[in-house]
C-alpha cells in the first residue's frame, strides 16, 4: 500500500519558490510558505511574508483535479484513490515488480509528477496508515515489510483532529510511541473509539480499505475465435466487425477516435499491436478499417491468433456536421482520410505543406507545417515576393563552384560545376541578401549576392557569391550554385 502527500496547490501556472497561500474569506486555507499555517488571518500572513501570492481556495476544483490525478495513477496499479485534500492512495500490492521494485516505482512516480509541475512526497508501507504518516511526517521512501508505525512521529501522523491532538499534548503525549504503549481503555473513555481505531490501523490490526476510482470507460471491443486465425482475409473480416462495434460506441458517446490500437492475441500467449492515428476525430468505419488492413502485413500470426481487441486509446468529441446544401454547391473536399493513410504509412514528418516564412534567406523562407493545420492553408496572397524569381529546385547545401567574374559586382563570365564549364550567355543580378542581423549576431555583416544566369545551352542557374565583392568582412568571396530554374 502506498500513499503520497502532495504539497498543497503546487501546480502549473505559478513559478516555483514563490510563497503561495489560498484563502477562504480572510483566513488561510492552505499554505505553501515557511512560518505560516492554516487558520491564520491573511493580514498577519502578509505581514510575516512579504511578496505572498494569494489565491482564493477552490476545494471543489482541487477535488476534481485530485480525482483526475488518481485516474492517472492507475498506470501503476489497478487500485488508486484520492485522499482529500492533498493525498493519493495507490495499492501497489503485487504490481511493484512491474516497475522495477517499490523504490524504483516511487522514484518514477515522483519524477513524473514533477514533470507535471507537482512536488510530491511518497512512501510505501504495509498499511495505509503507516504510508500516510511516513509520507507526511517523515522523509517518505520505502518502509521495510513488517515494520510498524515509527514511534517518534508526532501525534498528527495518526490522522487525529487538532482538538484531540492538543488535549493529548496537555496529557504529556507528543509522540506516537508512548501513546501506543499505554492502556487503551482510559483513552477510549476520554477520546472516543476513533483514537483506538487509528492506533489499531497504525499497528496493522484493523484492515483499512480504500475506495478506488473507476477507470475511465475506454471504448473497446474484443472478439475471440473458436479456431485460431492466421490469414489476412480472416483478419480483414474481424477488423470490419470490430471497427463497426467501436464506431457504434463512439457515435453513442459523441466522440471520434484519434488513436486506436488493435491487439492480436496469439495462441502462444504473446500479443502484437497495430496502432494508427488520425489527423482529426474519426468514426468512419470504412476509413478506420482500411487503415488497419493496410498495416496487416506487419502482423506475424505465428501459430494463430485466438482473439483480437480494438481499443480507442485517444478519443475527442465529434459532433454531427451538416452535409452540403445543394444551394451552395459541392462541399469542400475532405483530405483527412488521405492524409491519415499517408501519415500512417510514412510517418508524420514526411507528409507536409509548405508555409511562408518572412525571411529573405532562401533556406529560411519555407517552413513545413502539418497538412491539416490552419497555418498551412491560409497562406492566401501573403506569399513570397513575386518580383524576385526563385528557382524551382534548390540544392541543399549549396555546391561550391569555380567562377570567372569581374569584381566587385559583375555577373560571372563562366563557371565550372562538376568539372563542366558553363559559359554565361545572359545574367541578371546581383540581388543582395543580407544576413539576418536582427536575429543572429554572427550575421551582422554577412552578405550574399545572387545572380540568375543562363548558359549557352539555355539552362538557368542561381549562383551566389558570399560577400559583397569588395569588403572581406562580408564574406569570403567564394561562389556557390544554389538552384535551378
Amino acid at each position, binding site marked *: 500500500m502506498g500513499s503520497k502527500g502532495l504539497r498543497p496547490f503546487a501546480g502549473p501556472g505559478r513559478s516555483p519558490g514563490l510563497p503561495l497561500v489560498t484563502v477562504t474569506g480572510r483566513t488561510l486555507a492552505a499554505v505553501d510558505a515557511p512560518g505560516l499555517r492554516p487558520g491564520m488571518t491573511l493580514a498577519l500572513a502578509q505581514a510575516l511574508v512579504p511578496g505572498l501570492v494569494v489565491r482564493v481556495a477552490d476545494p471543489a476544483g482541487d477535488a476534481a483535479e485530485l480525482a483526475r490525478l488518481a485516474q492517472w495513477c492507475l498506470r501503476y496499479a489497478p487500485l488508486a484513490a484520492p485522499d482529500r485534500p492533498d493525498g493519493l492512495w495507490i495499492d501497489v500490492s503485487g504490481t511493484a515488480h512491474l516497475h522495477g521494485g517499490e523504490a524504483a516505482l516511487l522514484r518514477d512516480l515522483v519524477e513524473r509528477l514533477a514533470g507535471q509541475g507537482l512536488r510530491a512526497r511518497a512512501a510505501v508501507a504495509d498499511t495505509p496508515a503507516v504510508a500516510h504518516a511516513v509520507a507526511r511526517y517523515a522523509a517518505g521512501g520505502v518502509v521495510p515489510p513488517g515494520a510498524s508505525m515509527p514511534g517518534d512521529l508526532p501525534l498528527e501522523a495518526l490522522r487525529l483532529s487538532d482538538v484531540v491532538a492538543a488535549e493529548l499534548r496537555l496529557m504529556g503525549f507528543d509522540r506516537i510511541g508512548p501513546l501506543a504503549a499505554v492502556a487503551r481503555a482510559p483513552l477510549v473513555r476520554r477520546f472516543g473509539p476513533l483514537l483506538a481505531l487509528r492506533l489499531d490501523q497504525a499497528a496493522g490490526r484493523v484492515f483499512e480499505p480504500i475506495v478506488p476510482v473507476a477507470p475511465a470507460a475506454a471504448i473497446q471491443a474484443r472478439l475471440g475465435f473458436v479456431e485460431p486465425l492466421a490469414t489476412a482475409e480472416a483478419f480483414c473480416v474481424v477488423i470490419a466487425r470490430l471497427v463497426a462495434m467501436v464506431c457504434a460506441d463512439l457515435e453513442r458517446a459523441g466522440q471520434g477516435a484519434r488513436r486506436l490500437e488493435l491487439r492480436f492475441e496469439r495462441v502462444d500467449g504473446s500479443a502484437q499491436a497495430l496502432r494508427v492515428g488520425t489527423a482529426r476525430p474519426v468514426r468512419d468505419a470504412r476509413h478506420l478499417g482500411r487503415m488497419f488492413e493496410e498495416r496487416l502485413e506487419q502482423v506475424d500470426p505465428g501459430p494463430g491468433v485466438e482473439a483480437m481487441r480494438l481499443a480507442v486509446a485517444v478519443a475527442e468529441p465529434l459532433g454531427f456536421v451538416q452535409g452540403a446544401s445543394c444551394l451552395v454547391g459541392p462541399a469542400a*473536399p475532405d483530405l483527412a*482520410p488521405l492524409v491519415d493513410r*499517408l501519415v500512417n504509412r510514412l510517418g508524420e514528418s514526411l*507528409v507536409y505543406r509548405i508555409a511562408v516564412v518572412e525571411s529573405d534567406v*532562401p533556406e529560411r523562407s519555407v517552413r513545413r507545417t502539418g497538412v491539416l493545420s490552419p497555418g498551412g492553408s491560409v497562406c492566401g496572397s501573403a506569399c513570397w515576393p513575386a518580383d524576385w524569381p*526563385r528557382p524551382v*529546385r*534548390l540544392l541543399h547545401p549549396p555546391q561550391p563552384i569555380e567562377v570567372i567574374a569581374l569584381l566587385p559586382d559583375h555577373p560571372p563570365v563562366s563557371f565550372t560545376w562538376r568539372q563542366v564549364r558553363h559559359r554565361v550567355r545572359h545574367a541578371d543580378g546581383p540581388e543582395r541578401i543580407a544576413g539576418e542581423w536582427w536575429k543572429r549576431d554572427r550575421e551582422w555583416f554577412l552578405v550574399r549576392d545572387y545572380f540568375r544566369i543562363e548558359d549557352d545551352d*539555355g539552362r538557368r542557374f542561381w549562383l551566389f557569391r558570399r560577400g559583397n565583392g569588395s569588403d572581406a568582412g562580408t564574406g569570403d568571396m567564394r561562389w556557390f550554385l544554389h538552384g*535551378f530554374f
Partner: protein
Amino acid sequence: MFMPLVIPVRPGQSASGERSQAIPDGASQDAAPAPSRPLPAAQVATIAQLRARIARIERSHDAAAPARSLPLGIPAIDQALPGGGIALGALHEAASAGADTEHAAAATLFVAGLLARLDGPVLWVLRQADLFAPGLAGAGLQPNRVIFVEAGKAVLAVMEEGLRHAALAAVVGEPAGRISLVASRRLHLAAERTGVLAILIRRSASFDDPALATPSAAVTRWRIAVLPSPPALPEAPETPGLGRARWRLDLTRCRGGEPGSWIAEACDAAGRLGLVPDIADRPHPSRLSA
C-alpha cells in the same frame, strides 16, 4: 496483362500509336500532323464517331467522370492533342532533356504551370526534398494548394493512393529509374477512375537514360528542352538581363495523336505558356518538307 490498344485513327496512315519512342533531338524530321487536303464532312463525322467509340473501349468500364482536358493555351499544340489538351483522368509523363534530366527544372516548371491552371489541391510525391516551393509559386502554383509527400521508394504506391481520392486535382510523382508497364498502367487506371490528373516527372542522373524511354501506359510523354533565350530587350541586345526562358516541347508519345515538337516561351507567373513572337509565324519544318 493490359496492352494499350493500337488502332489507326486517321485514314491513310499506319498504326502508329507505339511509334512514339523517344524522338531524336532534331525532332523536325518526325512529322507533325499536317493533312495535305481537307477531308469531306461525312468522313470527319465518321472519324469522330469512331474516335468516341475507341475512347469508350479504351477507358476502363468503371471510369466515372467524362473525359475532360486542360488546354495548354497554344492552339498549335492543343490541336495535336486528342481532346484539345492534356487529358484529365489520365497518366502523363514529363522529363527534361540533356543535362537538365537530373534536376528536371524545366519539366517541373512545365508541370507546375499546368497545375496552376487547375483548381483544387495537388499531391506532390517526392523521392528527395529538393523542390523549392517559392519557385512553384513563381509558376502560379501556390503553396497552400500542394501537399508534399516524401515517399522514398514508395513513390508509385503513394501516387496510386492519392489517385483514388477524387478530392485532389492532380497527383505528381517523381519516381526513380525504370517504371514497368504494369505499374504505369495501374496509375493510369486509378487516374481514369477518379478523373484526377496524374503526372510523372521522370528524372535520371544520366543524360539519355534508356529507362526514361521504355514503353509505358502514359497518354502523353513530354520532353522539355531548354533553348537559349533571346536578349531581354531585343532592340538593345547588349543590355544585361534575363528575358523569358524558351523551351522546346517535344511530345514524344501521344496516344490517339501524333508526336510533335514546338518551341514556346516558358510558363509565366500564372502558369501560361507563351507563343514565341519572332518565330510564331514561321511555318513548321515538317510543313515545309510536305
